[in-house]
């Protein structure tokens, strides 16, 4: 069995457990101990899942990009399983980001949706991830599929900053980043639950990717054992 898969099977449960603990503690802090916002009141609490969703979808894309470069370099089919998993889970977190953002947008901006820079680029990111996943759906040859998918992921990652700048120039009303190099614009009482939640989401992401990678790997293994896979790379 592949080294990476063995390692994942051993650590998977611990990541799941850690994610659960962080999320429970984070939710308690976010919903109970943290104060309501001066302007937005209780509504602001959705931030504690919206921001982690957004952070995690960026992490997913980073993993996908590095994994794709790694795949083109080493051609390891398990790395391809990892990329596939990261893209699928990343799409889930991007959808979460858009949905929670929309729910927050209604009370905060009095609109469900606006074509502002970050919303638009998050939507474009989701569309790129969907194109990536659909490309994989339409291919039979696993070796070619892995290579083409890696190419699309790399193009998409290179494209994303350009998309972001173009839509930002185009229009923007999103509130400025709260955590920047110039200093913290938010108080400790809000920042700490936010960090706990973000770590919880990162752990959850890692756990989901591990489970999904192992699932995809086992699926390919089964196909290879049935003799349907042309390349016997998994065996």
């Amino acid at each position, binding site marked *: 069995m592949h080294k990476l898969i063995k390692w994942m099977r051993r650590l998977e449960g611990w990541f799941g457990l850690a994610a659960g603990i962080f999320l429970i503690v984070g939710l308690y802090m976010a919903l109970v101990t943290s104060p309501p916002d001066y302007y937005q009141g209780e509504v602001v609490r959705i931030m504690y899942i919206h921001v982690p969703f957004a952070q995690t979808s960026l992490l997913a894309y980073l993993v996908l990009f590095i994994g794709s470069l790694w795949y*083109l370099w080493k051609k390891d089919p398990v790395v391809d399983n990892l990329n596939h998993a990261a893209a699928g889970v990343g799409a889930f977190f991007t959808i979460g980001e858009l949905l929670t953002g929309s729910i927050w947008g209604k009370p905060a901006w009095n609109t469900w949706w606006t074509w502002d820079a970050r919303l638009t680029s998050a939507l*474009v990111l989701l569309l790129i991830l969907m*194109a990536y996943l659909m490309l994989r759906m339409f291919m039979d040859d696993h070796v070619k599929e892995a*290579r083409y998918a890696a190419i699309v992921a*790399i*193009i998409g990652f*290179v494209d994303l900053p350009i998309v972001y700048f*173009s*839509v930002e120039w185009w229009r923007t009303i999103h509130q400025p980043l709260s955590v920047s190099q110039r200093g913290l614009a938010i108080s400790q009482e809000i920042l700490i639950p936010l960090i706990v939640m973000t770590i919880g989401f990162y752990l959850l992401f890692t756990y989901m990717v591990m489970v999904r990678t192992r699932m995809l790997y086992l699926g390919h293994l089964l196909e290879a054992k049935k003799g349907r896979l042309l390349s016997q790379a998994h065996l």
Partner: protein
Amino acid sequence: MIFFRVIRWIVWKDLLSEIRSRENISSMFFFALIIILIFSLSLSMDTEMVKEMIPGILWIAFSFTGIIGLGKSFLVETQNDCMENLLMAPIPKGAVYLGKLLGNFLFMLVVEIIIFPLFVIFFNLDIFGQIPMIMLICFLGTLGLAAMGTLLSAMTVQIKAREVMFPLMLLPLVVPVIIGAVEATKGAINADPLKLYQQWIQLLAVFDLVFLIVSYWLFEFILED
């Protein structure tokens, strides 16, 4: 040098087969004409609205006709095992990419040169002094569409459901080109001072440069078998 000879041959081959069959350019041209018709029927515009909306309609027409041409670009190579021959030939793969790109770019540009005057006539535009600037914007925007489209066309031609997958992958990736080209064209058509829209032209140039380099490098992985 063999590199430039390969580019020249591939462009020449594509141009020759296009001149003989006239398949690509005529289908792109009529599709563009239909887009103009549909837009003028579905949006009722007065002179002020036209100035606001024409850049958008123009680039919808350009990018959709581009999709028709680009999507078929590598389809011709699948006939008579052309793809296998290109793979086996002892030539740099990047040159194959640049050759196909140049051919696609020329087809798209020819169609744009034909349909742009139709836009001017149908929508009563007064843009005579702005023609060099609009040409520059079309050049940069089309290059960006063609650079990305040629790469994706080489990929999608080898999978099922290519008619669906090609636009599905191309359009989200060329969002910056569409935004940049539309905004720059808007500035040029309204005869704004260059300072107001030069950032969009710079955006197009950066996009073109980045994607020429990235696609040139990634193309080798598509043809690798």
